[in-house]
């Protein structure tokens, strides 16, 4: 089975896309879970501020999400552009 240069480049790009999105998904998943756990703790301690705490949780999670979105962008670039 003869492997051509263009084929091996594409193969590496596909594998790279999977690894990029796969590993890139780990951090935000864990980080956002921590945020949610602490938000539940805070609401348990001070239920009157539930609205404010949920809003803060969502803003924090959105920031933590950014690296996951970078991974998605890099994966899509590897799949369709490079």
């Amino acid at each position: 089975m003869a492997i051509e240069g263009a084929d091996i480049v594409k193969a590496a790009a596909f594998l790279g896309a999977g690894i990029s999105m796969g590993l890139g998904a780990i951090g935000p998943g864990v980080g956002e879970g921590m945020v949610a756990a602490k938000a539940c703790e805070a609401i348990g301690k001070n239920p009157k501020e539930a609205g404010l705490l949920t809003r803060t949780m969502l803003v924090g999670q959105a920031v933590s999400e950014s690296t996951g979105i970078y991974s998605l962008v890099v994966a899509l670039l590897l799949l369709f552009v490079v």
Partner: protein
Amino acid sequence: MMDLDVQAWVKVAAFAGGGIAMGLGAVGAAIGEGYTAAQANLAVSRNPKISGDIFKNMLVGQAVAESASIFSLVVAILLLFLDKGNPTLLKAAALFGAGLSMGFGAIGSGVGSGFPGGQACLGISRQPAVSNKLTTNMLIGSAVCQTPAIFAMVVALMLLFMDFSNAPLHPTWAALVGAGLSTGLAAIGSGYGGGMAAGASCEGVARQPEAVGNVTTIMLVGQAVAQTPSIFGLLVSFILMFKTFPESMQLQSAMALLSAGLCTGLGGIGPGVGNGMAAEGAVRWVARNVTHAADLMRTMLVGQAVSQSTAIYAMVVSLVLIFVL
């Protein structure tokens, strides 16, 4: 490499797969059971008078945590001794994939099941009167923790027993290895995360025995959501096993399928653990502040949904790799 005949390659794959299945499969249960035993020791030192009850609960909890590695043992023995039928190189890939699926898939459930066991032992030392409730809650929680390992076993058994002889070797070999990796890796996070929620619920029941209904309910909801990444992994595995791929000698078609399995598998680890953390926080505080259980449930679900998003991105990238490219 070419000197080895197909028969030898099938054996190589089966033996390597069997080693991986049992080797990785032993990691999780051992850690989980060690945690249970450590907490049981702590519990006995706090309340030596009921050491018999604690000891009994420890053994029951450890027995459930053991099941993940028993699945691994079964798959490893099948890989070693099963009659391989008519050997093809594709069969070799399927057997290796089965080993990967079961080996990785047992890690999370094994560790996770240890948490409810340990927390139930501590709870019994604190509240001996509710030891029955604690044992029941522990059993429910750790049984749900086993689900990802069961998914991994299902995929492993399908890879072992399905007939792939009509499919073209290239690129189907990569689809079968990818199918094993997808469910196996994704099960790590869900098993561990489900265990965190179950551990917090046992601690919560010991703290507020009258809140047991609310605590068990939110534990089950939290665990169910934490299970989602491993269901994504199972879905991608099924697509990789059941879809027929046109023959292609190009490396890129094989790598796209392998990468699809790897992507959903790795991508499921983080959201599984994260969802478990969110559920742990909510369960812990429902036990302490049961009047606001509804608020806590809502916040937990919103937080888990956001934490789930990266697993969904990973699944989307996998589906693009399988269907678009």
